[in-house]
């Protein structure tokens, strides 16, 4: 997240070029441009909060943010060029008495160029996205902690394996709206819903997955540091959609074990209530 220039390959100022005949003069504007491009991401940190992505705390949030920034750069440049051309043409070719418009029906070479360039950009973006997508949504880590998350109007039931280390047994721990997990170890969550579609959204973790009734969907995430965050519902689920909020606590493995043991010792009201509906 912090090292935002990493994924872009843009920040490489001051390339030395010994063999060129008139090096410094011709390269100065280019180097200058590279310097600006390199400086911009760090300048981004000085931007007001609302112009930035939220902090990223999962191990793949940096990759998603990198892709976001890459697309922001590409579309940003296209945007500036196209809008500048538009404005320039509007000013340059505005009506003047006695002028006659240039009579042309088009240019096939230009058509080919502006078909191929966007096509190449889009295919490259698709290829770059494909790998991250597969790693985030398709390939589940093997040594992960398994939990189950069941959405209902308007709460998140989160089920942990109890002392026996297995999910779906009698000693499971169920909490309401409390997601705890240890730092550094991936979590694989099975998402379900009792009633309508909800969407499990952890903004800072760059996690979003719908919880669909009648379906089980597996996702994984992890945290790179300890802290407190929130679960949001991102899919309209009824009148209480806006307050379907949960809490995320990432702690050290020891703290987590301690917390889990406390839950096992005295399961709260919500937990036992949710346990009754184990069959869902």
């Amino acid at each position: 997240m912090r090292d935002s220039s990493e994924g872009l390959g843009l920040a490489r100022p001051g390339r030395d070029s010994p063999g060129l005949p008139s090096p410094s003069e011709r390269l100065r504007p280019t180097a200058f441009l590279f310097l600006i491009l390199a400086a911009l991401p760090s300048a981004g940190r000085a931007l007001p909060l609302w112009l930035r992505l939220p902090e990223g705390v999962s191990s793949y949030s940096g990759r998603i943010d990198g892709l976001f920034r890459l697309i922001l750069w590409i579309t940003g440049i296209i945007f500036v060029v196209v809008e500048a051309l538009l404005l320039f043409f509007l000013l340059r070719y505005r009506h003047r008495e006695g002028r006659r418009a240039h009579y042309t029906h088009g240019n096939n070479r230009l058509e080919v160029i502006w078909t191929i360039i966007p096509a190449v950009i889009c295919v490259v973006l698709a290829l770059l996205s494909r790998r991250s997508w597969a790693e985030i949504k398709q390939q589940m880590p093997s040594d992960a902690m398994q939990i189950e998350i069941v959405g209902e109007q308007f709460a998140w039931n989160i089920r942990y394996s109890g002392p026996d280390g297995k999910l779906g047994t009698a000693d499971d721990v169920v909490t309401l709206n409390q997601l705890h997990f240890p730092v550094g170890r991936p979590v694989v969550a099975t998402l379900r819903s009792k009633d309508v579609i909800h969407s499990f959204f952890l903004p800072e973790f760059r996690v979003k997955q719908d919880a669909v009734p009648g379906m089980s969907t597996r996702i994984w995430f992890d945290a790179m540091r300890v802290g407190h965050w929130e679960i949001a519902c991102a899919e309209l689920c009824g009148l209480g959609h806006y307050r379907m909020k949960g809490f995320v606590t990432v702690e050290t493995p020891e703290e987590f074990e301690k917390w889990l043991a406390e839950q096992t010792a005295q399961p709260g009201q919500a937990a036992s209530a949710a346990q009754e509906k184990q069959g869902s």
Partner: protein
Amino acid sequence: MSTISPGDYAIPEPAFEPAPEHLPGVHPAPTSFWRKYIFSLDHKVIGKQYMFYALLMLVVGGLLAVLVRWQLAWPGKPIGFMGKLFPEGMPNGQMLPEFYNSLFTMHATIMIFFAIMPILIGAFGNFVVPIQIGARDMAFPTLNMLSFWTAVPAAVLIIWSFFVTGGAAQSGWTSYVPLAIVQTRGQTLWALSLLILGLSSLLTSVNFITTIINMRAPGMTFFRLPLTVWALFITAILLLLALPVLSGALIMMIFDRVLGTTFFLPAGLVVSGQPWRNAGGGQALLWQHLFWFFGHPEVYIMILPAMGITSEVLPVFSRKPIFGYRAMAYSMLGIAGLGFIVWGHHMFQSGMNPLLGTTFMISTMVIAVPSAIKTFNWLGTLWGGNIRFTTPMLNAVSFVAMFVIGGLSGIFMASTPVDIFIHDTYFIVGHIHYVLFGGSLFGAFAGLYFWYPKMFGRLMNETWGRIHWAITFVTFNCVFFPMHFLGMRGMQRRIYDYSQYTHLKGLQPMNQFMTVSVFVLGAAQVILVINFFLSMRRGRIAGPNPWRSNTLEWQTSSPPPHENFTGQVPTVYRGPYEYSAPERSDDHWPQNEPPPGVGTAAGAHG
């Protein structure tokens, strides 16, 4: 590329032309008030009826949006008089969450189905297409009348749903199940209304396709069609193929709600602690697949006609042929074809197999290409032109400028990993408004100012038109551009009170700025309404061709006579955008003007 030499085809025999009321495909001019203004068969009257219908619904949809924005700027702050209008949804003027859900659901439904589609397809399509192709009316005038009068009860039903117990539909315009099935009664009215409206659109699309294929004037080959006609032709095909899927899904939804079927309801559904009465065997994601199989072509149904209008207006006011006519037509065909294989990009986070997500990402990236081609061709059209900034032109250029933003922001959500974060956030809301308001609505404004003189015989006031455009353009961006920032902060869409969340703290000032901008944006539309009605009486007399345009609708009087062209229908000799041709001193060259040495003046001018 679309010019031809005079010898390219045979000039039709000057045939005996019967009186207009006996012409094939032309109904006699009506005399009674009812047949002339209410149950009219005349495509021009029906076009105007659609226009009033759409503008009225545009106002309704806009007011709903203002209420949504009010809640977002000042959550929970009461509006006294609204308590009287909606005692159930806004007791003492304070908005309830379920009423808020109704507001954005109905805002989107009304804008999409009852404002944008009727103004682009119903109003401009009906009014312009038959005259532009040199026909005397649509192929099926009675069917055309039925289309409009089917759309009216649909609108009545959707407005009425606000006042039934439990209020209007509140599960979003996408009405994802099971939420839409466990909802209040308004949802059934919503589905019924769209079912009826779908029938109306289906009739219209059949009519357009038949008309464009069969009723073109002599010499009007497909590649001499104005791009508006191309756009509406492709739109009609999209409607014909996509709408029945929505209708089928709506019928299933109504059955699930009313008759106890379980198309969309999986087993074990527990709602508010009670097992749902009819659950088992259904699939919740089936609705999303069906809805978006319709819904994505629908997006193009709403943007293609606006692209057509823009392609019409830019050459006229640049005094240049459109750049790459065939590329424009083919790219629209490409958009239409690809539009049917990208629906899954709305479902990346839905639980659909992630592998499918990859294929939909690739097809989605590919569909960006024809849109890019169109944008570059519009730029090419402006290049080297002799540009006049009339109100239609200002709005058409705004279409191009804003569509670029809407198109580019689409790349973000096409990338599956990026979509994980921005899906269902305000980033998406920003994107769709840049396409539908910045795109479709600016296109509609361009068309309105452009064809108004043809419709009513008088020009709209140019100064007030410019003021309306300037305020709309600036405030539009003030309202919708910050939505991208909200989305980047992770602000979910359809959320009644964002102050609940830590990650959304500090967003209220921006939301207030957007809401204040909405007030100005809404107020600016009053200028348009006043200009629209005052100009009917007070506007400058337009004459047949105020813009010195080439296409056939400008080669007849304004407004055109009942049978569109007095005397014979015109014969077409060239493409629609022959502006500033070097062999002529005049910078326009009407499609029906015989080349030197061919024929006589017969049928050339009405």
